[in-house]
């Protein structure tokens, strides 16, 4: 192997990498909030007792989960303008990611709702709690505990998936790689460093999420 590795040349662009990390975190956080809001609504519809509410919710979830994010992104960014809806790359990225996450979030939340046993609600009511109190003191905590691990890993998956939006030139960490590569012509070093940056983010978030889980759900503070 005759190749001279020059990671130093890429590391001169440290500021761009940090900027990319911040942009990725912003995009992931915004998407997580909007996506979960969509997911909550869709989960409510898909557990409804009316078929005409369940059907569109189920179709949405299946359509999104069975098509690639990249194609969804292209439909939003390249396809929608022909219907008169022109979006810039960043907005298109956020919309496509939110719609995508909404479907996965809906499934997680639905599983959380269905994991609460009917007898738990009946026990709460039998103790004289109102429906709202039962929800607040009996159901909510258990449901949150049930879905928290899945939500935490979904956030990490989402963060890694945001790299895909670089394909339409939206600004985030992976897009910075293209910029650095164009300046240094060090493709391998650039993409290796950027990819490893994601690993740092992933491990950091896993640690943070398990610390939060321990604080909130395991070491339950006296109430």
């Amino acid at each position, binding site marked *: *192997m005759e*190749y001279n590795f020059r990671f130093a040349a890429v590391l001169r662009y440290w500021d761009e990498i940090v900027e990319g990390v911040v942009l990725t975190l912003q995009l992931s956080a915004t998407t997580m909030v909007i996506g979960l809001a969509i997911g909550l609504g869709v989960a409510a519809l898909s557990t409804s007792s009316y078929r005409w509410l369940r059907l569109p919710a189920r179709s949405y979830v*299946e*359509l999104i*989960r*069975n*098509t*690639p*994010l*990249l*194609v*969804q992104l*292209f*439909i939003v960014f*390249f*396809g*929608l*303008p*022909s*219907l008169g809806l022109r979006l810039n790359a960043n907005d298109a990225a956020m919309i496509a990611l939110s719609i995508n996450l909404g479907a996965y979030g809906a499934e997680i939340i639905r599983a959380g709702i269905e994991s609460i046993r009917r007898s738990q609600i009946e026990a709460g009511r039998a103790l004289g709690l109102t429906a709202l109190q039962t929800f607040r003191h009996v159901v909510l905590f258990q449901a949150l505990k049930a879905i928290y691990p899945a939500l935490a890993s979904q956030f*990490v998956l989402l963060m*890694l*998936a945001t*790299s*895909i939006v*670089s*394909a339409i030139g939206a600004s985030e960490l*992976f897009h910075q*790689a293209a910029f650095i590569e164009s300046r240094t012509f060090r*493709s*391998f070093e650039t*993409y*290796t460093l*950027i*990819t*490893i940056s*994601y*690993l740092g983010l*992933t*491990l950091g978030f*896993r640690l943070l999420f398990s610390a939060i889980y321990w604080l909130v759900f395991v070491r339950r503070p006296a109430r």
Partner: protein
Amino acid sequence: MIREFALADVGFLILATRWTLLLALTAAIGGGILGLIVAVVRVVPARPLNWLAIGYINLIQGTPLLGQLFVFFFGLPLLGLSVDAWTAAATALSIYASAFFAEIWRGSLQSVPQRQWEAGASLGLTYGQRFRYVIIPQAIRISIPPTVGFLVQVVKNTSLAALIGFVELTRASQIMTAATFAPLQVYLVAAAIYFVICFGLSQVSRVVEGRIHVSR
């Protein structure tokens, strides 16, 4: 030359789908073999080996597939291998899939109750024999639905190979868009093709899962 998006163009996309399927199949087989090795290394009673497998799984699951694709696309030539987009995509997708298969199969191996190991030991079977005749047959049954479910992810992930220039369904759609200027129709057709494949696989996974639960 700009022309209308016609039925023949749908045929072009369907024809390009064979590369999507071939790439997915290659990744499934390559990732399956590699994943099996990693899963075994992950559960054998030897700590340093376990850590090695955990490190590998975390490295792959903690980085974006797109990054892995680019690293292999630009990195393999440095090792003196002449790499086209197909080789880079097949390698990256296989390695990516192997980390997920390893975790799925580790879970399946560990969900076989401990007393099955003990029962095997009390019958005088060696570690290898217990693994081969007691644990694996049971673990395989448990692992089939999540394995088929992950194949959906593999098929969807092949779309990223378009970004290093491998002409599969998504890249073919980009080319078709450039020719017809009908992005909405082209990408909707592409999405429909992906949906047929992935929804089919999801249904298979569900049916298999139902069968296995019934027979237990």
